[in-house]
């Protein structure tokens, strides 16, 4: 039977399947066994309590949803006192996601969350719905470097940086995050989007803009993971459109060490554990002994086939 375990830096995970921040909570224990997951990823927390964005917070689109939650939460104190203990009832490593609009506060958050029980600090520097312009640190390499450096200085915990698919040059931003001391890159957050209702001419979401979430986007994020994994030496976690075991394989072939899953868990509350089962079966069927063999195993060395030769071989 295949060994599904993976290591993200020093963090050991039983398998490469984790939930995506904000689309998961310990409450999923009502339907699945959380101890089977590769990791537990908490919803992004901010320092002070926040209400989040106006409703409606979600609308269906042609192929997926747009959503704009706006990082509601009860602040870091409540989080440490009440939410961390909920997650510590389960065994997988706890990844805590933080967000702020200032570098200093980001560092404070990381420092204050460097407590026993927290295994990883993920800095969400890419939330497109925190404010309406969609601007965030991960849009520019300099800002990324600055904020990740500050957070790095504030904590000894493993530090993961969640990047934005809205950035034009994800590779430079990834390299900036690596240079600044990130231990892993999480690619990616949601795509800033807009839906306008043609019945009343109004934006479909209370916050106007929202993040698009859809299996349709997987090829874009996969390309980013591939490009980044070729350039950095820290691990990459792929997030975007994973709904089946083959998608996990595809991300790993592109260079990801693990994946995160959001939407699929809405559609099928049992999706995450089902995908783990399927991944195991998929590897076993092919005699793959360790799932880590798949990381970066894309066969692309001989891709420079010339056009005429390629087109003489037909379908």
């Amino acid at each position, binding site marked *: 039977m295949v060994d599904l375990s993976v290591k993200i830096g020093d963090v050991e995970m039983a398998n490469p399947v984790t939930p995506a921040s904000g689309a998961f909570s310990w409450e999923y224990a009502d339907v699945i066994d959380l101890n089977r997951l590769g990791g537990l990823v908490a919803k992004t927390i901010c320092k002070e309590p926040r209400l989040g964005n106006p*409703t409606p917070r979600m609308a*269906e689109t042609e192929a997926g949803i747009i959503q704009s939650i706006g990082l509601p939460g009860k602040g870091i104190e409540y989080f440490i006192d009440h939410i961390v203990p909920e997650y510590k009832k389960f065994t997988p490593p706890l990844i805590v996601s933080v967000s702020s609009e200032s570098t200093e506060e980001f560092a404070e958050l990381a420092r204050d969350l460097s407590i026993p029980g927290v295994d990883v600090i993920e800095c969400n520097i890419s939330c497109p719905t925190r404010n309406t312009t969609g601007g965030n640190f991960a849009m520019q390499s300099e800002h990324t470097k600055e904020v990740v450096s500050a957070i790095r200085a504030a904590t000894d915990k493993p530090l993961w940086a969640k990047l934005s698919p809205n950035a034009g040059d994800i590779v430079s931003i990834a390299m900036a995050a690596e240079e600044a001391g990130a231990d892993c890159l999480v690619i990616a957050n949601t795509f800033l989007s807009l839906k306008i209702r043609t019945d009343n001419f109004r934006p479909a979401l209370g916050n106007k803009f929202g993040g698009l979430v859809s299996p349709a986007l997987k090829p874009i994020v996969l390309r980013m993971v591939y490009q980044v994994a070729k350039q950095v030496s820290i691990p990459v976690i792929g997030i975007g459109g994973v*709904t089946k075991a*083959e998608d996990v394989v595809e991300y790993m072939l592109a260079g990801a060490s693990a994946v995160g899953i959001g939407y699929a868990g809405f*559609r*099928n509350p*049992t999706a995450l554990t089902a995908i783990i089962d399927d991944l195991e079966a998929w590897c076993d069927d092919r005699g793959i002994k360790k799932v880590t063999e798949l990381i970066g195993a894309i066969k692309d060395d001989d891709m420079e086939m010339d056009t005429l030769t390629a087109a003489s071989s037909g379908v």
Partner: protein
Amino acid sequence: MTDFVSASKYAASPDRVGEPDRHPDRPAGEFICNVLSNEWVNGEYKLLALETPPRALNARAGQFFHLLCPTPDGAEVWMRRPMSVYRIDKDAGHLQFLYKCEGRGTQGMALLEPGDEFNIAGPFGIGFHLDPAWKNIVVLGRGVGLATLAPLAQMAAENGVHVTAILSARSAELVMSRDMFDELGADVIAVNDTDHSSDVDNVEAILEKLIADGRADAFFTCGSNRLLDLMKRLGKAHGVPGQVAMEQIMACGLGACYICVRTFEVNGEKILRRVCREGPVFDIQETVGW
């Protein structure tokens, strides 16, 4: 999308009718049920009856399931749709939903035929609560709200609580669930817009009378903001506790995503609560109208 996006074995993960329950102690699950019937109740509503795994039948009145609706048009329906349990028959292993055919999800549901499979997740949320001290309750519902309130009559009957049900509708023909309330021994008062008996003034008079007669230990409502406001006002004036089932667009149904929030007022402070987790049933006095 089901199989294209999902691998072959993926679909096997939800629990199925007839298979041993692999997780008997989980409060909720993802279930593949068998459609028994799916008939029109009137021009707008259909009643869906499912055979489900036993665990799904632990649902209480006021709780809901999150339904993976088939496509009405060849395109995906990307999100589940929440529906209150309408009737639970534990002995037969049946669960019913009463639903209004509105948009793509419910139009897709309307296509289900006996023998089809249907993927439902739940039961989710907090249902209605009956205080042992209550002997007489008043249920006031309109439209699709009746679907949510109906199982409360079942629960009341099981607990020896008397129900007065005021059923409001646009016209007399559209009054739904009357039979179910009748059958369960409720006093039924049907009101409608056509003869103006559903006007707030008239319903208020009915409620005042019930309170005066000692027939209103608690209020329950769903489906109309106007009627909720009325019950809130009268409940406050006369000290009658009340519960309301509320709606909001949902994604996870489990409390994770914070998509389904609504505003409530608790001790003078406005706060947000998740309809799927802290609700869908809330204290009437804590609701905030608009």
